[in-house]
């Protein structure tokens, strides 16, 4: 009797081990207690098809190019045409991207608050006008609908956005008076809900410049719509 009992217990344990093994193999994810992030280096270090550096564009401290681009009012706008500028909030944005749209009201508010302090918003649409929804007429319509008080420029021939290194919309480049890039990234930490924003990265960066300090952080990331080059 006892022997049988023991045997059954052993079998049961074996069964339990088998089951837990099955689960262990199906379980995805790193073992508990391990560092959760991407594996660091080693023989099988991750490869990247195109790194941020290969995408190119400005790094913090680079002097950004000026440009002369057509505004939705038909006039040409360049950075040097903005009077009494202490800096420039260059934003690559567009008509259709939901993330760009979610930030339109916040851009209007930023321009209202900071243009008089010498920091104007200059919006540039980097997308190919081959897509009618991103074309000049559609931009004029959008600017009117939303009541943009800042320039909304066409990146004619898509020559400016690759120099800056804009890869998504919206993508912000904050320049100082000398057009040196002081901050690259996102406007704040919550695209979907302005009222739930905890960190206003761009505003913090502008405030730092006003105090003669370096923005910290000076580089942030966000999900955005990919910029569409011509022919894509």
């Amino acid at each position, binding site marked *: 009797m006892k022997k049988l*009992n023991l045997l059954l217990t052993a079998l049961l344990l074996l069964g339990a081990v088998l089951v837990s093994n099955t689960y262990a193999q199906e379980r995805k994810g790193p073992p508990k207690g391990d560092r959760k992030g991407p594996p660091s280096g080693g023989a099988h270090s991750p*490869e990247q098809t195109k790194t941020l550096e290969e995408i190119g564009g400005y790094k913090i401290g680079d002097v950004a190019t000026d440009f002369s681009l057509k505004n939705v009012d038909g006039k040409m706008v360049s950075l040097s045409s903005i009077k009494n500028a202490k800096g420039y909030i260059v934003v690559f944005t567009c008509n259709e991207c939901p993330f760009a749209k979610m930030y339109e009201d916040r851009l209007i508010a930023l321009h209202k608050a900071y243009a008089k302090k010498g920091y104007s918003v200059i919006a540039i649409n980097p997308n190919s006008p081959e897509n009618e929804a991103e074309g000049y007429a559609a931009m004029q319509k959008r600017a009117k609908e939303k009541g943009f008080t800042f320039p909304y420029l066409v990146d004619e021939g898509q020559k400016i956005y690759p120099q800056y290194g804009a890869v998504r919309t919206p993508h912000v480049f904050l320049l100082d008076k000398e057009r040196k890039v002081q901050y690259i990234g996102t406007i704040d930490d919550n695209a979907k809900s302005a009222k739930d924003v905890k960190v206003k990265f761009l505003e913090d960066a502008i405030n730092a410049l006003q105090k003669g300090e370096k923005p910290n952080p000076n580089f942030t990331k966000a999900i955005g719509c990919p910029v569409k080059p011509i022919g894509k």
Partner: protein
Amino acid sequence: MKIKLYLTVLLSTFNGLFYSPNISAQVAAEPVNQDIRVYNFDELEPLLYTNSSKTYIVNFWAMWCGPCIMEMPYFQEYVNQHPEVELLFVSLDFPKDIEKKLKPFLKKKGITAKVVLLDDADANHWIDEIDPNWSGALPFTIIFNNTNRTYHERSFESLEELEIEIHKTIN
């Protein structure tokens, strides 16, 4: 009496073992993506790693991303031909659009691979957690198993391009 209990437990244990493949087969036969789960980054992260030698493809996309939509059929086609490969589409669409937009979209496009939705506001944090080299632009793809791993911030222009990258990653 005791023996009976042991036997019952034992039987159900083995039942569980032997029947589990059938159960999962039944689940797989059900219509896919009826229930699209919404995850934050902490919930998603375990799905980006594996302990198995099986090949996984995780693709970050959204309905509003043109290049993403262009490449989706290549991923679906690849796993249709290679059912041993696990494909996961991580949608960055809005949770409110799941029923009226996302589900009809997937149906129309013939996407049968699993889709989950990532809804986590602090992208500046989790983009770097996934890959410090990722700018945040979509589409973005991770190909991996338990030893190899590659990141692709690009869209695949053909099934062949995708096959080449998978082959390069895994072999």
